[in-house]
C-alpha cells in the first residue's frame, strides 16, 4: 500500500493495531522519532520493530479507521524560529493561534544538550522585589526552579509578577494544560504591563488533547534557545503546569504496555523531566535561559514521584502558603529553597545577607515551636512570646507576596525586627556585622 507523493514522503493506508494513543502499521525506511500525519493528525514514531512501526498520535486516535492515510514526513518535530515569534501565541505544534503564517528557519525541537564546559556559572541576580524570594530564596539567571503548589494557590499570579519584574528580554510561556481562564489572565497581565511584544506563548489548554502537551515544553525551549543562543538574549521560560506533562507521559507509556514504576509514572520520568529543565543555562556571551515552572501537588504531597523527581532536578523549589496569623499568602521560608542563591547572596548583595537570612529563618522556626507549645496548652517563656511577635512582623513585612522592596531595604527591615525583639546574642550573627549594622540604642 505504498505510494510516493513527494520525495521523503511515503504514504501508507493499512493500520493493523490501534490503541487510544498509538497506531501500528507495516512500513519501511522510517526513522526513529520521525513525524507522520495519521488521518490528518500529527503523530510521532515511538517504536520500530522490523517492519512494524508504532506511532503516537498526539490528538488521540478517536475515529481513526484501519484504512486511514498515514504520511511520513521524514523529519522530527520542528519549529520555525525567527524574531517573528515575538509577541505571538502558538499551539502545541508551533502554529500561530491567529491562523497566520510564520517565516523562519525550521529547527528540530528537543535538540541536543549544551556541553557542560561551554556553560558559565550563573551569577546574575534576578530581583523580584518579593522578599520571600529575594531575601531567602534568591533567584539567579540560568536557574531552573518550580513552584510546588496546591491547585488553589495563586502560583500563576506570582509567576506572572516574577516574569514582569525580572527584566528579561523575552518571556516564553509554555502553557501545558492551562485553563482557558489562566491563559487569558496571562495574556491580559502581559498586555497591561505593555510587555506583549516580549512574550512568546505556546499554549495547550485543558480543551486540547492531553498527549499534545508533550510537545509544548520542547517548543517553548526551542524558541528560548533561539533567542538565548542566536540573539544572546536573557530569556525567561514559564512552564505551567508540568504535573500535567508528566501525566501525559504516563498515558503514553501505559498505552505502550511499559512497566510503570513509582506512582504509575514511567521509569524514565527523571530523565524525561531533566531533559527539559536542563535547558536552563547561562552562556558566557550573556545569553541565558531561566526556567520558572509549576508542579501542582495533590494535597501538598511532595513524596509523589512527580514533585520528588522534580526536586532532584531543579535548583530548589518555591512553596506558597497562607499564613493565618497575618492573613496573607507568604513564600514559605522552611520548605522553599533556591540552591543557586549562594552564588549571589553576600556577593552581589550586602555581605551580611546570608547571616541575616539564616538568623531570621531560625527565629521564625523558634516561633513555630512556640506556637506548637501554645496549641498544646503550655505556658510560653518570655523568649517564646518575643519570637511570636517577631514572626508576625516577619510574615507581614517580608514574607508576604505583596511585598515589593529592594534587597537592602529587606535587610534593614530584618534588622529593625531583630532590634525590636531580641538581643544580638539571641540573633547569633557574626560580631563584625552586629558592630556594623545593628543600630545601637
Amino acid at each position, binding site marked *: 500500500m505504498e505510494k510516493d507523493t513527494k520525495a521523503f514522503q511515503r504514504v501508507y493506508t493499512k493500520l493493523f493495531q490501534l490503541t487510544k494513543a498509538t497506531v501500528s502499521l507495516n512500513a519501511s*525506511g522510517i526513522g526513529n*522519532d520521525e513525524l507522520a500525519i495519521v488521518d490528518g493528525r500529527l503523530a510521532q514514531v515511538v517504536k520500530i520493530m522490523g517492519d512494524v512501526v508504532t506511532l503516537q498520535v498526539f490528538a488521540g486516535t478517536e475515529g481513526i479507521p484501519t484504512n486511514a492515510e498515514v504520511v511520513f514526513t521524514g523529519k522530527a518535530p520542528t519549529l520555525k524560529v525567527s524574531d517573528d515569534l515575538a509577541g505571538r501565541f502558538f499551539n502545541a505544534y508551533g502554529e500561530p493561534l491567529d491562523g497566520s503564517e510564520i517565516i523562519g528557519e525550521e529547527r528540530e525541537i528537543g535538540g541536543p544538550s549544551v*556541553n557542560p564546559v561551554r556553560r*558559565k556559572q550563573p551569577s546574575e541576580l534576578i530581583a523580584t522585589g518579593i522578599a520571600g524570594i529575594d531575601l531567602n530564596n534568591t533567584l539567579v539567571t540560568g536557574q531552573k526552579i518550580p513552584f510546588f503548589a496546591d491547585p488553589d494557590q495563586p502560583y500563576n499570579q506570582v509567576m506572572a509578577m516574577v516574569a514582569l519584574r525580572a527584566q528579561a528580554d523575552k518571556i516564553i510561556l509554555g502553557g501545558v494544560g492551562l485553563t482557558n481562564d489562566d491563559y487569558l489572565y496571562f495574556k491580559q497581565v502581559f498586555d497591561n504591563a505593555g510587555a506583549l511584544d516580549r512574550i512568546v506563548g505556546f499554549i495547550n489548554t485543558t480543551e486540547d488533547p492531553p498527549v499534545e502537551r508533550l510537545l509544548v515544553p520542547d517548543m517553548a525551549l526551542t524558541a528560548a534557545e533561539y533567542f538565548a543562543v542566536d540573539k544572546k538574549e536573557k530569556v525567561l521560560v514559564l512552564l505551567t503546569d508540568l504535573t500535567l506533562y508528566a501525566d501525559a507521559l504516563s498515558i503514553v507509556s501505559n498505552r505502550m504496555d511499559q*512497566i510503570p514504576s513509582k506512582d504509575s509514572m514511567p*521509569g524514565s520520568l527523571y530523565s524525561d523531566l531533566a531533559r527539559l529543565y536542563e535547558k536552563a543555562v547561562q552562556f558566557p556571551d550573556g545569553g541565558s535561559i531561566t526556567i520558572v515552572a509549576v508542579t501542582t501537588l495533590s494535597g501538598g504531597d511532595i513524596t509523589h514521584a512527580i514533585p520528588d523527581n522534580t526536586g*532532584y532536578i531543579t535548583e530548589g*523549589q518555591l512553596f506558597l502558603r497562607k499564613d493565618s496569623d497575618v492573613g496573607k499568602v507568604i513564600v514559605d521560608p522552611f520548605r522553599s529553597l533556591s540552591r543557586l542563591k549562594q552564588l549571589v547572596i553576600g556577593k552581589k548583595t550586602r555581605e551580611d545577607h546570608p547571616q541575616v537570612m539564616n538568623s531570621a529563618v531560625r527565629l521564625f522556626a523558634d516561633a513555630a515551636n512556640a506556637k506548637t507549645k501554645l496549641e498544646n496548652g503550655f505556658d510560653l517563656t518570655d523568649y517564646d512570646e518575643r519570637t511570636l511577635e517577631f514572626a508576625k512582623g516577619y510574615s507581614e513585612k517580608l514574607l508576604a507576596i505583596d511585598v515589593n522592596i529592594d534587597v537592602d531595604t529587606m535587610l534593614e527591615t530584618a534588622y529593625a525586627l531583630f532590634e525590636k525583639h531580641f538581643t544580638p546574642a539571641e540573633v547569633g550573627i557574626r560580631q563584625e556585622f552586629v558592630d556594623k549594622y545593628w543600630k545601637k540604642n
Partner: protein
Amino acid sequence: MNTIGKVNGIIANLVIVETEGTAAQNEICFIEHDNTRLMAEVIKIMGNKAYAQVFESTRGLKVGAKVEFMGHMLEVDLGPGLLSKNLDGLQNDLDKMEGVFLKRGEYTHALDDHKTYGFVPLAKPGEKVTAGSWLGEVKENWMPHKIMVPFKMEGEYTVKSVAKEGEYHIHDTMAVVTDKEGQEIKITMTQRWPVKVPIRAYKEKPRPFKIMETGIRVMDTLNPIAEGGTGFIPGPFGSGKTVLQHNLSKNAEADLVVIAACGERANEVVEIFTEFPELDDPRTGRKLMERTTIIANTSNMPVAAREASVYTAMTIAEYYRAMGLKVLLLADSTSRWAQALREMSNRMEELPGPDGFPMDLPAIISNFYSRAGFVYLNNGETGSITFIGTVSPAGGNLKEPVTESTKKAARCFYALSQARADSKRYPAIDPIDSYSKYLEYPEIAEYLNDKIASHWTENVFNAKTILLRGREAHEQINILGDDGVPLDYHLRYWKSELIDFVILQQDAFDKIDASTPLKRQHYMLEKVLEICDMEFKFENFEKVNPYFKRVINQLKQMNYSEYESEQFKKNEKELETIIQERKTA
C-alpha cells in the same frame, strides 16, 4: 575481521541488531547513521539478535543501519594527562569538543597525544615485573605519576630496557619487557582497561586501619571514615548533599579526587568547573583542580553513558591507587545510576524487582562498592580508594531499594535529616541515626587514640550519649511542657544543643569554619565536654535558654576565628567569665 550486523528494531535508546557472526555480552558496537558512528553496548543476546543500549540519541535512526562490533568491552585510556580533565561518562574530553551543543557521534580522546612528559626510570634491566609494576615516573601537574606494566599483561616478565631520563610523548616506548618465551613487548605511557572489570594489580587488601581526615567535624569527630573505606550519604533533596560533597572534595586529606557527577544538575558541574581551578588547595597551596578529575554525565546527557560514568570514574581511581596514591572518589548520585539501569531493564521488558528496579540491583551496588579499599601493592607501597556515594531516595524514604542495597554495602552512613536542614542546621547529618562501623574496628580505635588523644574514642562515645540524652529530654519537654519537667531536663537538652551548635554545625561557606583540622577538633570537643561535665545553678528553667545561648555564641565566635588567634583567645576568655557566673562544680 569484526562482526557486522544491521539494525532491526528501535525503542528509544535500545536498539536490536541482527547479526550473523559472534557477539559478546557488554561488547561495544558502532551504528552507522548519517555519516556518524553511534557507540552502543550489547546488554543482551537472543539467538542472532543482540540488544544494544546506545550511548547517544537514536533520533532518525532507521532499520537496516549497518553495525560493526568491536570485539572489546567499554574501555578507557589510562595514562598521564587525566588529572584536571573534564570528561564525560565515556571518557571523552569535553573541552576538546567543538560547539556549544554536544554533537552526536563525536568522540574525543582523554589523553593528549602531543604533550610531553619528563620521564625518570625506576626499574632496571633484568628486574622481574608483573602487571602494575612501576617502570618509571613522570610528573603530571606536580603529582608523581607512575608508568606501569599494563594491567592486562598476565604472568611474569623481565625488563629488557627502560628509556633514559628525558621528555617523551605518551605513545613513545618507555620500556621493553620479555615474556617467558623471550618475546619482546613494548610498553608506552598509556594502556586501555575495560571499566566494568576491577583492576587487581595489588598484593592484598587489608581491613582499613587509618582514618581519612575530612575537616568536617560531624564526620571526623563523631563518625570518621577510614582511608580506603566506603560511605554513603542518603538525603532528600534540599538537605545539602551536594554542598557536603563539594566540601569533602576541597578539604579531605587525599592525594587526588575523582568526582563522578552522575545524572545530576549541569549547573553543579559548572560550579566545580568554575571554582576548582580558582580554589587554592588547602593541602598543597596549589590549585585544587590540579589534583582533580571530573567525570560529568549530567542528567540531560544520554542515560546509558550515565551508567558507564561511575565505572569510568572507579577505573581511573583504581589506576591512580596502583601508583600508591590516596584517592577520594565521590559519586553524586548513585541513585541516578540505578535509575539508568531501571530504564534499560524496563525497555528490555525484564520482570521487575522492587519499585521497578532490576532484580540484581543489590549485587551490582555491592560489587561496585567493593572496588574501593586500602591496598598493599606488590612492591610493598600502599594505596587507597575512599569511596563516598550519595543516594537520592525517592520521596526521602530510606526504605527504597537503592538506599537499602547501599546500606548493606557501605560501612559509613551519613543520614541527612530534613528536619535539620529545615532548621538550617548544616551539615544536616543526623548525629544519632548516622554511624561509622569503623569506630568499632579495634585497629581504628587504636589509631585514633594514638593520633589524637589517649581517651579520644571514649570522648566521642561520651558526646554521642549526651546528644542522645538531650534528644530524649527534648521530647519529654515537648510532651510535658517547660515547667512540667525537672530543671535538669532543660540542662540536659541545652548541653546537647551545645554540642550540636559548636561541634556538629559548621558553616561550609565561612573561610575559617569550612574546614577544621583534627587538632582543633580535639581542642573544641574537650572544651565542650568540659562544659557538659560542669554543674550550673539556675533559679528557674527560663534562665537556662538565654544563658546557654550566650555560651554557644562565644564558642561559635571561636569557630569563626583563626585558631589560637587574638580573637579566639578573647572569646575564650569571655566564655570563661560567662561560665564562672553560674558554675557550681
